[in-house]
Every structure is written in structure tokens, then in C-alpha cells.
């Protein structure tokens, strides 16, 4: 674990990422999001599908240019550096992709996939790279022979582990895990999550863990942020958030978590949300959740609520609080 526990390692300030999807249409995928991640910490990010989690993660990685706002790594703004410098930055932060099938180039061997980052950054000699590839393969629970194979010969879980090996190859300090488990089935999900936790313990990595499986997020994260339509609506330590959700959306979410226990599950009272998720294209002003919130007041559909610290360490964005 890191020794400077309280200093923010990554600072996201008023990050916005809009996509232009037509002449007059702007899709506000991430709209004014701010948070920090400490070194060695795991921040979970949950929310409805399409609410902007992936976009947020990729913008933090610098894979998308931010529309506005800052992403500070140790105080350096990622979006202000360009060209070669920026490419070098790739060594600090890496990403594990959502889809283990799409994120591996089908025409490259696993060895090449894993060593690509080292090739790009000219790390080590050929033999050293080879050695590192073998080490990584073993670290993620595969074996050496697998280096000369092609991705299509692997199962989803194995592929996801190749993706993890690729991210680890250039010794990053920070990894964005973009739903690394949602494409896998339960027994393999557990394998991957166990691995991530082990690596964090051993290497002191920092994670941004994106998922919509709330139980899994709770399991792995120190703190959890809840997103809704591009906004961060709640942010709190995981135990606190699950025990005591404040935002109406978070509440609904928590109540809807299906529990693998028929007695509990059938007895449980769910908050059923009315209506559909509005479109993120040209969203109306005001709280994004207002249209589905049964407590919504007039104010909610006019003014966008700020994310405020309601309790120590527990932030929420709602006019009702």
C-alpha cells in the first residue's frame, strides 16, 4: 500500500465529454463530473447502462479528448500534454476493456499482444520482453505455451486475463477496469476479481473499477460513485453507500439488486421506477433523474443539483437532501 494515504493521486475536475451526433444534437455522455482517487485505492463506478461510465473511464485515460475539465495525475493535467509526452504517459495508466472478445486483435499472437506496449516504449531487449511476457502469463494464471497462440483459442475468462496481462506489461500505476467481468459467467468473474485484488495487494495498484453488478462493485471497491445520465449523483465509501443510500436513484438501484436467495428475494420490497431513462442527447436542464423520481419538486426540473458532502465522506447530488 502507498504511504501517502491521504493525498489524491488522480483528481478529476469538472470533466465533460460531449459527442456531437448530428448538426444540432449533442450527446452529453459525461457532464461535469469531479472526484479523486487516492493511491492504492479502488474507486467503483456504477450506474445504468449508457450513463457514461465507459466514456468517463476512457476520458480519464486520455483516449477521448475531454470537452472541458481537467484530469490531474499527481498534479499534472493529462489533457494539457501532447504528442510524444502524452504517449509516454501511457506507461502510467492502463485500461482493461469491457469486452474480452473485441479488445484483442484476432490476428496477433498472445505474446505479441502482451509485449506490444513494451515494443512501443522500447522497454528492454527482446529477450527481456520475452521473459516478462512469460512472467505475466503465469501471474494471471495462464502458462508460457499460451504466448504463441491466437486469442480465438481462449475462453472468455482467459482472454480477459490476457487483457490484464497486457495492461500490466508496462508497469502502470493506475488501471481503469471497464466492466472487466460483465461478459463473463459467474464462475470466471470470481477468478478475475480475485486476481485483481491480489495484484492490488502485491503491486499497490490504483483502480477505477467500472461495473453494473452492484454486489461485485461493493466487493472490490473502497469507495463507490453512482452515475446517472452523465452526472455523478452519489459518492461514498462502499459500506456506507450500501447501508445508507441517500439519492433516490441509488435507493432504487439498491433495492433492485437481485439476491441469490429466494426467501430474501421474494420478501424484498423493490422500488420500481416509473418511466424510461431519458435520452442523453440534448438533455433538459435540471436534475437528470427528475422525470423518474417520485419525490421530484419544481426545483428539480429547473436547477441541476450540486454534489455536496452530506455526511463526512458521503457526497450526493439531490435537492431533497
Amino acid at each position, binding site marked *: 500500500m502507498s504511504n501517502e494515504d491521504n493525498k489524491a493521486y488522480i483528481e478529476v475536475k469538472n470533466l465533460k465529454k460531449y459527442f456531437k451526433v448530428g448538426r444540432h444534437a449533442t450527446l452529453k455522455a459525461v457532464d461535469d463530473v469531479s472526484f479523486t482517487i487516492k493511491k492504492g485505492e479502488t474507486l467503483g463506478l456504477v450506474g445504468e447502462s449508457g450513463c457514461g461510465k465507459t466514456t468517463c473511464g*476512457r476520458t480519464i*485515460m486520455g*483516449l477521448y479528448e475531454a470537452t472541458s475539465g481537467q484530469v490531474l495525475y499527481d498534479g499534472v493535467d493529462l489533457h494539457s500534454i501532447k504528442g510524444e509526452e*502524452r*504517449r*509516454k*504517459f*501511457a*506507461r502510467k*495508466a*492502463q*485500461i482493461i*476493456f*469491457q*469486452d474480452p472478445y*473485441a*479488445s*484483442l*486483435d*484476432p*490476428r*496477433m*499472437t498472445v505474446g505479441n499482444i502482451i509485449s*506490444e*506496449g513494451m515494443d*512501443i*516504449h522500447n522497454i528492454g531487449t527482446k529477450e527481456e520482453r520475452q521473459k516478462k511476457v512469460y512472467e505475466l502469463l503465469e501471474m494471471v494464471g495462464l502458462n508460457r*505455451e499460451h504466448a*504463441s*497462440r*491466437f486469442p*480465438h*483459442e481462449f475462453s472468455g475468462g482467459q482472454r480477459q486475463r490476457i*487483457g490484464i496481462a*497486457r495492461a500490466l506489461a*508496462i508497469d502502470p500505476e493506475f488501471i481503469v477496469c471497464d466492466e472487466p467481468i460483465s461478459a463473463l459467467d459467474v464462475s470466471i468473474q470470481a477468478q478475475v476479481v480475485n486476481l485483481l485484488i491480489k495484484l492490488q495487494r502485491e503491486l499497490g495498484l490504483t483502480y477505477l473499477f467500472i461495473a453494473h453488478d452492484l454486489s461485485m462493485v461493493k466487493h472490490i471497491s473502497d469507495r463507490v460513485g453512482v452515475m446517472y445520465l452523465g452526472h455523478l449523483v452519489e459518492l461514498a465509501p462502499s459500506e456506507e453507500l450500501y447501508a445508507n443510500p441517500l439519492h433516490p436513484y441509488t435507493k432504487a438501484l439498491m433495492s433492485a439488486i437481485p439476491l441469490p436467495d429466494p426467501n430474501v428475494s421474494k420478501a424484498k420490497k423493490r422500488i420500481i421506477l416509473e418511466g424510461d431513462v431519458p435520452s442523453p442527447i440534448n438533455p433538459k436542464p435540471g436534475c437528470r433523474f427528475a422525470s423518474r423520481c417520485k419525490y421530484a419538486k419544481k426545483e428539480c426540473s429547473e436547477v441541476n443539483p450540486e454534489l455536496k458532502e452530506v455526511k463526512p465522506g458521503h457526497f450526493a447530488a439531490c435537492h431533497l437532501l
Partner: protein
Amino acid sequence: MELNEKSFERLSSEEKHSDEIVRPAISYWADAWRRLKKNPIAMISLVVLIISILLAIFGPYLVKYKFDAQDYKVLDNRPSAAHWFGTDNLGRDLWARCWVGARVSLYIGFVGTLIELIIGCIYGGICGYFGGAVDLILMRVIEVLSSIPYLIVVILLLLVLPKGIGTLIFAMCIMGWTGIARLVRGQIMQLKNSEYVMAAQALGSKPMRIIIKHLLPNTLGIIITYMSMDIPAYIFEEAFLSFLGLGVQPPKTSLGALVSTGQGVMTNHPYQLFIPCSIICIIVLAFNVFGDGLTNALDPKQRQ
């Protein structure tokens, strides 16, 4: 089945895996080749292609006549034991001429396609990958090029440059590459949003590296289909130019030139048209069918 004590002993972890079926480590290409081999029709066309290529190389030497040796004693003779494919109006042996012609045609087809492929892939790759203004401008260039009558450009180049097959290929390529550039661009526009491309970006890859290492190899299937149609297209193109008298210059010849000569004497000496035409047909057919098979074999969706 006999059950005994031993049956219910625990397995050690090695024993568990002892008979787990591990697929043999087989490379992507070997895998594709294996699948191709299982497609009889593709294999037949491959054999036909190889035979055609061999004949184009060695065929003319199987007879004692030179392809341009005239013999006025045997004008327009039908196929016979002496002249397997007959002779033409100047008494030249058609077997030798056909295979010399096939050599030229195949050469034009292969080289033309190769050049076109290189230009088209890079151009299309750049258009597709960068998109935006770069794409807009580069695509206009293609649009302009494909609007100019092909003949004007070919004639112009044939006039300006020294005569020869090189010039001919160059002239054909200069307009031909736009098709493949379009195709590659379309493919790459789709592929560039793939996560593996983004993964490469995240690792700090430069754009050219991404295009060459990731994007182009993944368009291979479609490029091969295109190639299998393009090589014949070049053979035709040359035939068309030969019909207009712009093709290969005598005394050299090509399948196209032979067909266009044969067409003139169709009523009286049909074999002079029929033979070279059949050779073109067979080669083209083989290319097409083989290309079809190859695409199937390379298609990741068909992989197991």
C-alpha cells in the same frame, strides 16, 4: 461397469487434467489453411490456378515453335497434332501464343493488383483512420479521379511514357486503386472503433503503427476477396485496351489481344476466339472461386 474401492478415490489435481482435451497450438494461418483444405472446390481451383501459372511459365517451351514465328504454309490451321491450339492468320502457333499471352496477362494482373493494393491500402487506411477533414479532402480526390474518363488518362500516359507493359500497368493502376481505397476506408472506419485499436492507443501506439499492425491485417479477408476479383479485372482491362488497340504492343501478345484478334475471325476460325477466351474464363473462374474459399477460411466468424 465395475465399481470398486478405487473408483471412489479422490483424484489429484494433475490427474484431473490428465485427459482434458487441449486443442493443439495451431497458428491462425495454419488454421485457415486447414479449413481451406476442407473445401474441395476451392482446392480444385487452386490446382487449376497453379497449373495455369505453370503453363504460363513453361507452356511455350513445350512446343518447338516460337510464339512469334510466322509460317505462311500453315495460315489459320485448326488445332491438330502439330499445332495443339492451331495457328493464326500469320501461321503462328497458338499454343505458344496463348501461354505467352497468359504470362503477360497474369503478370499484369498480379503486378497491377499488388501496386494497387499497396497504394489503396495506405490511402484508404489514412482516410479511414483519421477521418474528418483529411478524409473529406482525400475522398474528393478519389471522386475526382474516378470521374475522369479512364481512357483519356490511359491514352495520355501511353503517349507520354515509354511504351511497354510497365507503362500499361501504371496507367491501369493510376485509376484502379480508388476502388480498393474506398473499400479499405470503409472497413477501417468500422474497425477503428474496435476495442483492440483503442487498446493499442492506450499503450501509446502511433497512428501508422495502428493502421499497419492492427487495422490492415484485420481487413485481410475482404482485401483478398477484392484481390481475387481484381486480378481478373486487370486481365480484362488489358483485353479491353487491346480491343481498342491500346494494350500490349506487338509482336508481344496477351490473352486480351488474342481474344480481340480472335473475335475478328470468329465466323471463320472460331477456335482462335474460343481457346484464348476459355483460358481467360478458366483462370478468372478459378480466381473467383478460390478467393471465395479463402475469404471463408479467413473469416473469424467461421472459426471454431
